[in-house]
């Protein structure tokens, strides 16, 4: 599904502010996998995500999605950004926000509206279509952003610290929402986070990045009994063990 080969990215190359964000990163993600990428703050996680999405052109190496080299945003890929308040369009109703990307899909207006409504239902916002983003709470706005990605029916969904700006309770709800929609839609998800617990709770697999310039320092399979539950999963010995291991990997490379 996703192949990342020797990826490197340098910002401001040749200037005094030269910054190596990623260096020689290799990663492959299988179809249907839910991969969490975790790493210390400022380690180049977002640069990695933007390279996969084709939003920036990496200075070295290559990214392939479904076997095709990424030069611009691949079809069948959708992104959920961290900053929902600046990613949703405030002048459009919630339903219009969700339906906007569907114009690319040769769907007529009524089918776009249906698909948007369906996506809003799957995130529990079936009644919010006519509202505007500013009328919703932060967690609900991020649900809208997730619905926008889902409506597009991507085969690969990228999530860039999607729960970084919401409170703890909302965060748990949204984590479970991702697990739920993932069961309904056949898709591969790459979720970037700096939260160690979250990566173990949500992921099938956790990849740990070093501090910048980022490369892979750990790759763990998460084999927890499902379905996952905010209380029982988090007290399961395997969960406790895994989060300790991920924590050591993250910390080991954050303090060097």
């Amino acid at each position, binding site marked *: 599904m996703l192949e990342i080969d020797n990826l490197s990215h340098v910002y401001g190359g040749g200037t005094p502010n030269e910054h190596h964000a990623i260096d020689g990163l290799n990663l492959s993600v299988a179809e249907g996998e839910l991969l969490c990428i975790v790493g210390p703050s400022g380690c180049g996680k977002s640069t990695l995500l933007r390279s996969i999405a084709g939003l920036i052109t990496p200075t070295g190496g290559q990214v392939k999605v479904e076997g095709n080299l990424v030069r611009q945003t691949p079809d069948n890929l959708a*992104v959920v950004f961290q900053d929902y308040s600046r*990613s949703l369009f405030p*002048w459009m109703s919630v339903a219009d926000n969700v339906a906007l990307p569907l114009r*690319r899909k040769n769907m007529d207006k009524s089918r776009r509206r249906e698909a948007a409504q369906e996506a809003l239902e799957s995130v529990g916002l079936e009644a919010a279509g006519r509202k505007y983003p500013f009328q919703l709470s932060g967690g609900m706005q991020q649900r809208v952003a997730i619905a926008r990605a889902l409506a597009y029916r991507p085969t690969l969904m990228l999530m860039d610290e999607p729960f970084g700006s919401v409170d703890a309770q909302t965060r748990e709800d949204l984590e479970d929402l991702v697990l739920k929609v993932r069961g309904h839609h056949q898709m591969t998800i790459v979720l970037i986070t700096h939260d160690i617990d979250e990566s173990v709770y949500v992921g099938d697999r956790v990849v740990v990045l070093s501090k910048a310039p980022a490369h892979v320092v750990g790759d763990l399979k998460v084999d927890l009994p499902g379905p996952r539950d905010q209380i029982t999963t988090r007290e399961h010995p395997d969960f406790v063990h895994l989060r300790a291991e991920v924590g050591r990997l993250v910390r080991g490379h954050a303090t060097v």
Partner: protein
Amino acid sequence: MRGRGMRTAVFRLLVLVGLVAIWEAGTWAADNPFFPRPSTIVVRMHELWFSGPPTALFLTEGAVADILPSLGRMALGFAGGALGGVVLGLAVGLSARVYDYLDGVLQFLRAIPPPALVTVFLVLFGFGLRMQLAFIMFSIVWPVLLNTADGARSVEPLHLQTCQAFRLSRAERLFRVILPSALPKMFAGLRLALSLSLIVMVFSELLPGTTNGIGFQLTFAYQSFDLPAMWAGIVLLGVLGYLLNELFLVVERRVLAWHHAAQRLVG
């Protein structure tokens, strides 16, 4: 909230009444024919424009001859200048390089007081309607253009990345994202342009070659020593400017409802 709104409205009215009363007393004391009393001016306004038959909405023939041509000139000039400003502003604002290259020139053109160019327009268009319209359009195009370009330049970067991530076409990006993003600043420019268009409209009617309009009525009243009629024209312009601005605000509140609501939330 509501009670406070009412109180403000009452105080506003009291201030207005108070000022008119002082004006009335001042003119009564001065007894100078050049400064007729407000009551005389209102009576003259009524005679001139608002004592027509009910079938004509109480407008007199004089009103049709004075007010309509002025409003027509202003509307056409404003529409043309605003459209030109929005289109050119978007074109300039879409490219950072074009914006940087042209910014100085545009600021220079905007800084020139339009009346200083009136002879240029007379040479190009001669006396009459064409010259007046071109003059109004040229005067108001700059604030609209500069504000629109500024608005188009200040689109939220994450909105543009979202466009890219969801593969929106160029047209979708322009009409559904960049244009709405530019609207708040565009409206600030349009509001400036509206008050400016009233000013240059009157100015253009003071020029020779005009036979109707409020500006013409002002000159005519002055030359025939009908000073209450001259003052009636001045008051009428003030009232028109006020009403047009209020109308504009109603439209703006509707179009930018999302913007104001989001702003209130942030504040």
